[in-house]
């Protein structure tokens, strides 16, 4: 009963220092037909993307290379807020500072309902803030952000 047309697979990068939560988010995302990569820290996430912890991106500043991030095909980053070392907020800021990755939607998860924290994340570019434990219904909220980002990508893809 599925339309062959738009079974677009989205690739989500999930970041969480908790082993149990990593297992959960992976299952939640896969159940919702996302392709998933899970890492246990912000720095591993940056490493996966090919970014470096520093201010400066280690990639060649050859502008043709800017399209490389599409080969990785990360369409959304979902990260826990409270992590040792680099917090989810730090990761958010780092992604938004990157010319290659700033357009990738970032979603933050937290077990703590702290309005000032939520507002700060949203103001600084997070698409959504999800309270843990994350439910299937929360994951379903992600798809519109991904569809929007993809259509924006196509809009700017003028060759």
């Amino acid at each position: 009963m599925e339309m062959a047309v738009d079974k677009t697979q989205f690739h989500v990068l999930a970041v969480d220092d908790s082993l149990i939560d990593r297992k959960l988010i992976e299952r939640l995302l896969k159940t919702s037909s996302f392709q998933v990569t899970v890492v246990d820290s912000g720095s591993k996430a940056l490493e996966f993307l090919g970014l470096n912890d520093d201010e400066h991106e280690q990639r060649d500043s050859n502008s043709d290379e800017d399209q490389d991030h599409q080969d990785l095909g990360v369409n959304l980053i979902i990260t826990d807020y409270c992590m040792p070392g680099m917090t989810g907020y730090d990761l958010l800021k780092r992604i938004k500072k990157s010319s290659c990755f700033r357009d990738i939607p970032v979603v933050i998860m937290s077990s703590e309902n702290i309005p000032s924290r939520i507002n700060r994340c949203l103001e600084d570019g997070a698409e959504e803030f999800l309270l843990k434990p994350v439910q299937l219904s929360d994951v379903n909220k992600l798809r519109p952000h991904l569809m929007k980002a993809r259509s924006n990508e196509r809009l700017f893809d003028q060759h």
Partner: protein
Amino acid sequence: MNHMAIAALKTQRRNLVQSMFDEGVLDNQFNQLQDLQDSSNPNFVEEVIALFCNDAERIITELNRYLNDQNVDFSKLDSYVHQLKGSSSSIGAYRLKLACVNLRQASEERNKEECAGAFNSIRREYYVVRSKLQVLMQLERHIVNLENQQ
């Protein structure tokens, strides 16, 4: 004969789960976990529970160690309780989660005695949920075995 055995086991399982909900040992998050299990991931719940128990026991050992120090490192304590609270919440271990909230509170107040009491509650609640979940998993396996023999 197997039909009756399976039905009896399923009743036992249903009653056990219901009692765990009624007593607040589990909350709705446990249902969410079960919903994520399917034929492509038939052992999901059991795997999550196993991970949870390993993690919880590690943390309880650490908490015990820190609480027995002359000068309790309350921030280290808090960091561990935060982890346990998170994973308890993730699997739906409701009363255990509440016990963690109490320890965080006591830790924030730097009250060593209250921390000790709260920690005992954590340990107690952990062993309650663990033993009931172990029975539940045994029932599940038994049911699956009998069903596979059909």
